[in-house]
């Protein structure tokens, strides 16, 4: 019988995970490249800068994770903190 946990899955191969990551890199590069050709109509000047949305998204997420990581120093407690 074919037990599900004996099976080898596509994602079990680290090279396939690499492929997905490279795909993300590729999509990002394409999205950045076509930014030249996309007309922008927003009222804010910053929005018309080249690649604003991509750069903002990247910086926001890195900042978010780094800040949250630092917050752990202050906020993190053992799971039984409130149980007495």
């Amino acid at each position, binding site marked *: 019988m074919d037990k*599900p*946990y004996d*099976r080898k*899955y596509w*994602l*079990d191969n680290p090279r396939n995970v690499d492929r997905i*990551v490279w795909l*993300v*890199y590729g*999509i*990002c590069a394409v*999205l*950045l490249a*076509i*930014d030249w050709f*996309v*007309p*922008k*109509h*927003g*009222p*804010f000047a910053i*929005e018309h800068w080249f*690649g604003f*949305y*991509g*750069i*903002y*998204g*990247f910086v*926001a*997420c*890195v900042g*978010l*994770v*780094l*800040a*949250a*990581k630092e*917050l*752990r120093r*202050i*906020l*993190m*407690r*053992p*799971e039984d*903190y*409130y149980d007495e």
Partner: protein
Amino acid sequence: MMNELSPGLILIIGAALVPIFRGYARSALMLALPVAAFALTLSLPHGDHGQFELFGLTLTTVRVDGFSLIFAYVFLLASLLGMIYALHVDDTLQQVASLIYAGSAISALFAGDLLTLFVFWEGTTVGSAILVFSARTDRSFAAGMRYLIVQIVSGVLLLSGAALLYVDTGSIAFGTIGLETTAGILIFIAFGIKCAFPLLHNWLQDSYPEATVTGTVFLSAFTTKLAVYALARGYPGTEILVPIGAAMTAFPIFYAVIENDLRRVLAYSLNNQLGFMVVGIGIGTELSLNGTAAHAFCHVIYKALLFMSMGAVLFRVGTIKGSELGGLYKTMPWTAGFCIVGAASISAFPLFSGFVSKALIITAAMDGGYFWTWLVLLFASAGVFHHSGIKIPYFAFFAHDSGKRPPEAPMNMLVAMAISAALCIGIGVFPASLYGLLPFPVDYVPYTVEHVVTQLQLLMFSALAFSVLMRTGVYPPELPSINLDFDWFYRRFLFNAARALLDTGDRLRARLIDIINRQLSRFMSELYRHHGPSGLLARTWPTGSMAFWATFLLVAYLVFYFL
């Protein structure tokens, strides 16, 4: 005649019938009730119905307009989906509670006056609290008690505000209230508590993850969206709501990144999504209020879907801690797939529901010239993709293989998730179907090259950030832990302060008793010294003692007499 009946009452009355039935009959009843209520809602003409006089007050129990209808549709949909998801549950208490909860929430939407609103507001409190208690663990009991206290405070504020409003204006009609009066402020705080405003928010993250697998799905749909609806009714265009909403979108995502309990991560992102709706209410234009209603509609469905998928994991694995999960896609592929649809919807990917609803609010913010708010909303949009869009499916279903091989979710759960996922995609692909339900006419086209490309840029570069941080090992790992939030203030600070006060009281009492005891024992020992077996006054016979005291009194009398 039938339009005198508030649709939610069908669920509430139906709840009373639940204990009579068993097995399939009960399941059929649970499913039939939301369908019947839906049919009634569809038949309601716009206008005020179900009016009657009570102690000189005019109550309007069924107010039907575009705003109450769109929320009612999605609440009924969520009830039905929740019922399907909970079909395997054989727990009368939970079934009755979820019907009362959903029914109260729906009837509260149709309330045309504040007293009717209050009655059903409290109905949601009772029903939802029982769903938290139903987990029947020590933790859920404690969290349920905290939840109940907060919700009751909200109800008391609402009633006080309504009473003040009646004194001021002689009416309890639920129209635009505004913040100019004390009554308005009280009601605003009452709504704000249920809407999880910053610093009033913590009951949400505290209680929802402690409820039962199926209970949390119901909880995620009703209470907070009822509050959003009430705010939109009472306080449209109230400027302070813009910064409040912006803060709500931003701060929970920091917690969501480091939280280990995945249902709690979803509770934080729920809070973040409410922020978008609150911003829409604060801006107060037709576009932004449409955005609030549309986003609430989509949000109820994709949030329920996400809670369903995490609930299925909890149901099958017995834990929902990110640190103990991973690799579940191998044996729960359907659940994983539905979860990803929910994640794509909350992240507002093109072709998913969040894309067509959140855009209304963000565009309204741009049109209104809210530059900083717009930046915060963009940050929150990237952030929500990061923690809900990627983190939830990644740590539950992929990441490192936990070695756990749970079976796929039960069929009824899969059906509920499949319908929800289909709705998420359906709304995303055919936005006109949603826009047609909105309270104001819609003049907005979500699928423009500009919107699709900029949104994809925002999201894909967020995914890029996640990949880079993951590959470089910078991303904080899931750790068995909890994080302090505002509930620390009442669970720890106030608790310790109260305990310190009691301890001080105890010490003072001990000191006092000590002093009294010492004085008493000194008095006793003096008494003993003089009157005890070897005491001076015990050496003589009582007659001698008597003669002594008689002489003493005589001498004293003489002394006073001569003075």
